[in-house]
């Protein structure tokens, strides 16, 4: 029978099927961090069980770490406790631990691919919803709750019903100044934040074939924002070139074996999806969000739509605009911006900083803007320095911080103050996500850069034209 890419990977990992219940799914790689793992380890302790395959789990600290002065002790006592718990649990159970200050430390979804932990055709889970990032490699990757973290530690399996399958095709080519982030925000604006709930998505079409691995990671990362369990892209030459030779990638004979497995990882021509969408990539503009969920996005040149033309109840919509301090029919261009955040597992990789640099180069940070530039990992941080991007940033009045999740979820000190507007390259614009009362406009690194140098929402294409 014809199978989709998703079927092949899922079915290949089913240990057993339960009548009237979920599948028992084997997990190849498990990533853990300090926030969602401590209670799982407590569970193991109270049951008196060990970690079944410690070599399949990797720990990094990221959600709750400072992005300045990482060499100093963490001041916040609760945060310090979580970091300590991650370290001592990892040591006790024999799990690799990349804590604060470790050279491999960074955001879990950035370091996983960088070190070759992420592999095509693998099943990957983490107690973080943006685990969907790893789907860029043709892996089945998704976020799990703490009870499931405990399950994976104890048995390397979780129990879930097989999701339905959706394919999203984007044809054509992307326009000038349009990035993978815009593609993702566009898709979510079309499907809404619940449009893919219950589905696992495969992204297909020329736009994704032409995309770099970093871009694919950005798109797959945001799959969860339309409710999907995850999203994936079939591995190709681009994928294999990225994976080959990384520290935890298979080597020698194991590589040959893995390679022949990777080659099987594509959807059969006549395979059927439960739902399918096709969009024309050439129609996508640089995007920005204006509301309090990631589905509330529009092309940057557009006006905020009327309540009548959007999904969901009018009162919820009005509550959202009210929180943002915006009105129906407002133009987004020209809205004042107080903060700019570039970073997170969505847009905290080197390409994102290159894009940011391409606009701020030769310009100055706007005086009214506070900017936080936070690399996703030490590898990204090092590349920023090596490629001379740091000089560009410094020249333009920006400061580079140290790796971590930072203002993406504002668990550490990087909080946007109440009432302030932030153009952010992260993934969620929920009320208070970036700090109590903060107002988030999600956008690409190019849009973030344009806001950072002009102090307001600006179409990056205007600034790019000048240079061309």
């Amino acid at each position, binding site marked *: 029978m014809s199978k989709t890419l998703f079927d092949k990977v899922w079915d290949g990992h089913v240990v057993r099927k339960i009548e009237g219940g979920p599948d028992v799914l084997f997990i190849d790689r498990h990533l853990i961090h300090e926030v969602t793992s401590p209670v799982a380890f407590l569970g193991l302790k109270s049951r008196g069980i060990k970690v079944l395959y410690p070599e399949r789990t990797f720990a990094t600290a990221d959600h709750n770490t400072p992005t300045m002065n990482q060499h100093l002790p963490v001041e916040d006592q609760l945060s310090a406790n979580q970091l300590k718990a991650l370290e001592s649990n990892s040591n006790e159970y024999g799990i690799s631990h990349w804590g604060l200050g470790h050279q491999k430390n960074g955001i879990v979804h950035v370091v996983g691919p960088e070190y070759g932990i992420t592999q095509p*055709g693998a099943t990957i889970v983490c107690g973080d919803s943006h685990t969907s990032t790893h789907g860029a490699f043709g892996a089945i990757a998704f976020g*799990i709750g703490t009870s499931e973290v405990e399950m994976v530690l104890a048995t390397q399996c979780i129990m879930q019903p097989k999701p339905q399958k959706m394919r999203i095709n984007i044809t054509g080519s992307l326009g000038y100044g349009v990035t993978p982030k815009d593609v993702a925000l566009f898709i979510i604006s079309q499907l809404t934040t*619940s449009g893919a709930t219950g589905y696992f998505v495969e992204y297909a079409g020329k736009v994704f074939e032409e995309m770099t691995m970093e871009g694919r990671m950005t798109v797959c990362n945001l799959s969860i924002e339309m409710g999907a369990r995850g999203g994936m892209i079939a591995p190709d030459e681009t994928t294999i070139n990225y994976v080959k030779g990384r520290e935890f990638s298979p080597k020698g004979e194991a590589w040959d074996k893995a390679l022949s497995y990777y080659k099987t990882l594509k959807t059969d021509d006549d395979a059927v999806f439960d739902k399918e969408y096709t969009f024309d990539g050439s129609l996508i503009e640089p995007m920005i969000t204006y509301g309090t969920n990631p589905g509330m996005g529009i092309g940057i040149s557009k006006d905020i739509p009327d309540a009548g033309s959007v999904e969901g109840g009018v009162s919820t919509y009005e509550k959202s605009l009210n929180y943002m301090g915006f009105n129906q029919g407002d133009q987004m261009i020209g809205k004042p911006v107080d903060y700019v955040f570039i970073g997170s597992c969505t847009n905290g990789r080197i390409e994102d900083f290159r894009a940011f640099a391409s606009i701020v180069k030769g310009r100055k940070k706007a005086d009214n803007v506070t900017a936080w530039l936070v690399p996703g990992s030490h590898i990204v941080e090092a590349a920023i320095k090596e490629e001379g991007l740091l000089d560009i940033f410094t020249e333009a009045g920006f400061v580079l911080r140290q790796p971590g999740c930072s203002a993406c979820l504002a668990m550490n000190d990087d909080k946007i103050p109440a009432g302030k507007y932030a153009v952010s390259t992260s993934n969620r614009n*929920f009320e208070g996500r970036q700090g109590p009362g903060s107002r988030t406009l999600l956008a690409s690194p190019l849009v973030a850069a344009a806001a950072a140098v002009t102090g307001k929402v600006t179409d990056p294409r205007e600034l790019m034209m000048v240079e061309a």
Partner: protein
Amino acid sequence: MAYDKFEILKSTAVPLPIENVDTDQIIPARFLKATERVGFGDNLFRDWRYNTDGSPKADFVLNNPTYKGKILLGGKNFGSGSSREHAAWAIYDYGFRAVVSSFFADIFRGNCLNIGVLPVQISPAFLENIFTEVHKNPETEIEINLSAQTITLLSTGEKESFDISSYKKDNMMNGFDDIDYLQNIKSEIQEFAAQLPL
């Protein structure tokens, strides 16, 4: 972690007629710093419930003594966003045993089932009726019968059935969790792992 068995729940309900309630509202990230699972109920809906100075916001439903009970009524797409199980813990710890909505986000639904909160998905029209009845009379009782998979609005007798897999239902009714099951098939898992390509 063990939780109370769920059989029949008869209770008044707390109405929250807002759509797309995300897990950052259910429990904001800054309250995820604990290393133990205690006290999350205090911060349930923290920023909707309290002013920045810690005083309660009078217009938020959890601060309105008229509404109480073990059932939380939510708008469509309840629990979207982050995978934090803390959101489900906060709901359980506050004292809710069931959440009723016309649509749930996936991970949140799974997390609830794993810790003993029953997500009950019903039709938008029925949800609307329950909201109306509860707003009209906060003493209105709702009965959720897990074994029969039905939810009944007792004031009108209106009733709907809801879906749950027989496996999960069994777990909820017995207070079991998945680890109990998986522990029992460990050798099967190990044999399976030995033949995997990665």
